[in-house]
C-alpha cells in the first residue's frame, strides 16, 4: 500500500543543506496500522508529507495506493490527496470559520474532474454520516472554537474519512489531547484498520505506538 524506497530529503537551513531523510525505506501493507516514532525534528512529519503527496521535493521512489508519486504533476497530486489519502494533524487544522459539518464536507468540494461529484445535499449527508461514525453527529453545526480538543480531532478524522481513502496519514494525532480524548482517537484508528484502511501514524507517544501493529523508529534519517 505504501512503498517508499531510497527516499532522500534535504532542507536548506541558512547557508547549509541538512539531509533529514537519508536513503529511507518503508513498506506498509494494506490494512496495517504502522507507527513511526522518533525525536522531534527527526523528519517524521516530512516522511508523512512525502507519503501523502503534500511534499513533492524529494529523491527516491514513492508508490502509495498504487500511484507512483514521482510521476504525478501538481494537479494529479491534488487529486491523489483528495481521493487516496486522508490527513490528520496534531493541531487539527480545521477551518475555524466553518461549522464541523462544513469542515468535514471540504474534500467533497474538490472532487477532481472526471470523477462524479456529489451534490451539496449528498455531501452533507455523507459528512453527517462521517461525524456520526466518530460520535459527533449531535455537534455537526458547532464551530471548531466551541469543540474540545478531542472533538476537534475527531472532526478532523471524519474529514479524512469522507473520501473513503485507502490510507490515513496522521501526524502526532494525540499530541494536543488529554489521555481520555487520545484514547478515543486511538480507538478510531483501530476501527479504521479493521475496515481495511491503512494507517500510518507518526508520533512520539507510546500510547499511540502501543496500539499499532508495527512500530518503526526514525533515527538519523532512516527507519529501524
Amino acid at each position, binding site marked *: 500500500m505504501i512503498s517508499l524506497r531510497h527516499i532522500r530529503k534535504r532542507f536548506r537551513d541558512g547557508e547549509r543543506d541538512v539531509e533529514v531523510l537519508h536513503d529511507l525505506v518503508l513498506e506498509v501493507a494494506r490494512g496495517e496500522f504502522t507507527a513511526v516514532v522518533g525525536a522531534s525534528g527527526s523528519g517524521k512529519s516530512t516522511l508523512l*508529507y512525502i507519503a501523502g503527496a*503534500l511534499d513533492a521535493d524529494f529523491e527516491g521512489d514513492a508508490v502509495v495506493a498504487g500511484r507512483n508519486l514521482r510521476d504525478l504533476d*501538481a494537479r494529479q497530486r*491534488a487529486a491523489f490527496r483528495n481521493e487516496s489519502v486522508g490527513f490528520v494533524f496534531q493541531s487539527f487544522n480545521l477551518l475555524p470559520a466553518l461549522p464541523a459539518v462544513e469542515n468535514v464536507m471540504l474534500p467533497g468540494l*474538490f472532487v477532481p474532474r472526471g470523477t462524479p461529484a456529489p*451534490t451539496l445535499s449528498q455531501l452533507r449527508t455523507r459528512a453527517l454520516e462521517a461525524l456520526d461514525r466518530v460520535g459527533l453527529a449531535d455537534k455537526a453545526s458547532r464551530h471548531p472554537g466551541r469543540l474540545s480538543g478531542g472533538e476537534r480531532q475527531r472532526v478532523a478524522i471524519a474529514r479524512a474519512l469522507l473520501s473513503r481513502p485507502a490510507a490515513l496519514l496522521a501526524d502526532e494525532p494525540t499530541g494536543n489531547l488529554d489521555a481520555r480524548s487520545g484514547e478515543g482517537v486511538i480507538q478510531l484508528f483501530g476501527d479504521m484498520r479493521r475496515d481495511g484502511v491503512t494507517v500510518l501514524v507518526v508520533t512520539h507517544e507510546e500510547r499511540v505506538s502501543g496500539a499499532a501493529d508495527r512500530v518503526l523508529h526514525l533515527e538519523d534519517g532512516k527507519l529501524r
Partner: protein
Amino acid sequence: MRIRSLVHLAALNLRSDRRSTLVNTAAACVGAAALVFFVALGMGVGQAARLMFPGDARLLEVVPGAVSLGDALGGGALDDAAVARLRELPGVEGAWRRLSLRVPIAASRAPEGVRMNWPAGFTVQVPVVGVDEGLVSGDLARGRDFRDPPPGQPIPVLASRRLLEVYNKTIAPAWNLRRLPPGLDLVGLQIPVRVGFSIIPLKTEDKVYDARLALAGLSDRVPLYSLAIPVETVRRLHQEYGKADPGYSSVVLETRRPDDVPGVAESVRRMGFAVDEGERAIAERVGLAITVTAGALALLALLMTALAALAIAQSLSASVRGRTRDIAILQAVGATAGDVRALVLAEAALVGLAGGVLGVLVAWLAARGADAAALRFLPDFPFRPETFFSFPPWLFVLGVGVSAAAAVLGALAPAALAARVDPARTIA
C-alpha cells in the same frame, strides 16, 4: 472544482469574514452607483437636449453668400439653376428649397375647434416660410397633402414639433392664455388668417382677404417660430401681390451620411454660397458639450470603480495572507492551485456582483431623488423632461458587470498570491 462547490465555499468564506465583506461590498457599491448614476444622467440629459435641439446630422442649410461676385464664380442668388447645381454635389441626396413669404399673414381668432381664451382684438403676425414637400414628407400626417391648394381651400401648413411645448411653457403663461392639453392631436386644426394684413403700420397690403391654414403635421425640419407652407403657394402669393422674386431664402441639403457634411459644406462655400450653421451648430455644440460632460463624469465614475477594485485588491491580499494556513488545509484535502485561485476570484466576483446590484439600486434611488428635487426646485421651462436620467436595461447589466469585473481584476494579484501557498511548508 465544480461551480456550485466554488460558489458554496466562496459564500462560506465571505460570511465568515463579515466585516471585510461589508467594506468590500460597499466599495464596489459606490463604484457601480457612481458609474450608473452618471451614465444615466448623461443619457437622460442628452435625450432632453435632443428634444430641445433636434438637429439632423445629415442636413445643411445653404444661404446666399454675404458678398457675391455673381455668376462669375457660380454664386449669387439661390435660383432653380443653383438648386440644380447643389443637388449634383457629391454626397448630396436631396436639395430642398425654402422661400420666406413676403406677404404678411396675421391671425386674429383662435384656431377652430380649440378652446382658447383668445383676447378680444388680439392679432398675431404669423411668420411663414415655403418649403419643398420633399423636406417634410416624412412628417406629414397620414392622408395629408402638402401642395398649393385650389382657390378657397385651406392652405396646408406644418408647424415645428417644439412649438406646442414652447407655447405651453412660455407664450401661454406670459400672455395669460389657456394652455393646450398635452397629447392634443393638432393635425387637421384650422387657423383662420387674414392674408395681406400686418400688425405693423403701413405694412398691410392693399388687398386683404380671409383664408384658413390647415395643420398637416408637425416637423422638426420647420423653423421653431414659423409655419411652413408649400413653396408653390408662396410663389403664387408673391405673384398675386406683385412681389419680386430674388431667389430662395435658403436651400436645405440632405447628405447621404453625416460624415459627408463637412465636404459638402466646403463645396458649397467654393460655389460662392454660405452655410448657415444655425440650429444645427447649436445642436452639435450642445451634443458635444453633453458628450464631453457625460464622458468626464463616466470617466470619474470609472475611476471610482477602479479605486473600489484597488480597495478590494488590498483587502483581499490582506485576507489571503491571513488565511495562508486555511489555504494550505484546502490543498491538503485536494484543492489545486487553480482551485485556490478560482476561490479567491469567486469571492471577489460575489462581492462585486452584490456591490453592483446594490450600486445600481442606489443609483436608481438617487436618480429618483434628484428628479423629485428638480421637479420641486427648478422652474418650469420648455422641454423640461419628466426625468433627467435614462435607465435602459443594458445599463443595469453594465453596472453589475463592471462592478464584478473590476472586483475580479482587483483580485487577480491576491488570487495569484493564494495559489503560490506551499501546503507542506505552511502546515509544517
